[in-house]
């Protein structure tokens, strides 16, 4: 099971078990959702902006360990970032999960390098990132409960 322990690294198992920033953000001003109709995974990302930077971020939804851990880690990576910065980080993350090449500087996202060996799971890893970028691109407006 060497491939699998690559895929399900300790970091991923940890984020899956104890997700960070899970749940909606009470004063969210931007929200976006994504789903993966093939497997039924879905993810909603809530943002409360601080100027052009993300103030608070949270996520909701259901999916496999990869998608849940990726969403959790994503929230820790994007907090405090602008849209441009977030897009840069997503590009780097996408590179990691599609090619398996590890980032130059150490980062927890390196844990996702194992995903590239499981092409069917790449969508699981990027689902929450897509939702976050979508939310960031929206104008502020009160989010209904």
């Amino acid at each position, binding site marked *: 099971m060497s491939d699998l322990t690559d895929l399900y690294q300790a970091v991923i198992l940890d984020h899956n078990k104890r997700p960070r920033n899970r749940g909606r953000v009470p004063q969210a001003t931007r929200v976006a959702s994504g789903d993966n109709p093939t497997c039924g995974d879905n993810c909603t990302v809530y943002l409360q902006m601080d100027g052009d930077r993300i103030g608070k971020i949270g996520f909701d939804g259901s999916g496999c*360990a990869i998608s849940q851990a990726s969403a959790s880690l994503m929230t820790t990576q994007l907090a405090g970032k602008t849209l441009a910065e977030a897009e840069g980080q997503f590009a780097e993350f996408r590179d990691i999960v599609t090619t398996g090449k590890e980032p130059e500087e150490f980062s927890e996202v390196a844990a996702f390098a194992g995903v590239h060996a499981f092409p069917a799971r790449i969508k699981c890893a990027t689902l929450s990132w897509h939702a976050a970028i979508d939310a960031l691109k929206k104008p502020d407006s009160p989010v209904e409960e």
Partner: protein
Amino acid sequence: MSCDFSNLRLDFPVLDQHVGGHPLVYLDNAATTHKPRAVIDAIARFYERDNSNVHRGLHALSMRATDGYEAARERTAKFINASESAEVVFTSGTTASVNLVAQGWARDNLQPGDVVVCTEMEHHSNMVPWQIVCQQTGATLRYIPVLGENAEGGLDLAAFDELLKEKVKLVAFTHISNTLGTINPAAEICAKAKAAGALTLVDGAQSAGHENVDVQAMDCDFYVFSGHKMAAPTGIGVLYGRKALLDAMSPWQGGGGMISTVAYEGSQWKPSPERFEAGTPNVADAIGLHAAMDYLDSVGRPAIGRHESELAALAYDALSDLPGIRILGPGEGQPRAGLVSFAFEGVHAHDVVTFADQDGVALRGGHHCNQPLMRKLGLPSTTRASFYLYNTPADVDALVASIRRILKFFGVE
């Protein structure tokens, strides 16, 4: 048992391979089944000897191809005990068969106030076509509920009786649920529908290759199934319909082969089955289907069904012991078709499937084309193990061992 199931594996070339370093244990049979050598060879033989277009040809190959294609139709009529072969329409699969009835019969015959009844356990393929035609005609789609928090109670037939008090024109339901393993009382449902003046369509995708089917005894109006789920090729399926109904229906597709006369101003149709088989049919795969029916009946469908149910019962018992498991469908000791769907608190089905695959065990995880039922049961998805004639008790052991390892990895057990 009339047949030694432990040797049947040898008839299926695909099973002779390793996945992840382990011998393949294929438990995704409700999605599609494998093909015995006899079926693979029948297709190749057709292309090597008799390949030709059918019906309109008078040369030797064309007559042989026509004979082969029509023999497949007759074999199919016998397989489901239709009263004549003209009641068998070849389609590309169950989904196409349902859509044919939705557009060829329902679209012309439904109006606002009319009701179509299906069930909460339907596959999308026997639900979405009715949603579409109800939207087109203004009719209403109602669902027979499933009972129990794990749907262990089957269909709520008392609720069905209530529904039948409305203006029900059609009851479309699955014979065997691909998600729950429930075996529905098809003849009883058809009888109730008939008494209320409604037609019936039985989705036989999960039953046709697993038990003896007798459409006359069941007394349904339409029965639909797919070849690929019963040891036959992809791309071929069947619509059985009562002859008088078929002959009164509009064609679903226009084109060569289904017309009696064409003029620039308009056209006339042939009777069934030709009316519904526009264009060049899938001759090779109809012949493959014929070979699959012969193969299944040489083993014996009742024995196949018993064998699968035994494996499902073994799996059910072993899985029941695992911590935090929810098993859907019939409870312990209840009749169950050859599949088990289950979910764990804290371990997602897709992770289970990915792990099991590394052990050589092929499972399916997801909504099994039954999203609304999953939502009702409060599950994003389940893992499903489904059996066929070539599976063995050893396959069940491999399944359970793999699941145990997964739970351990995720710290659940």
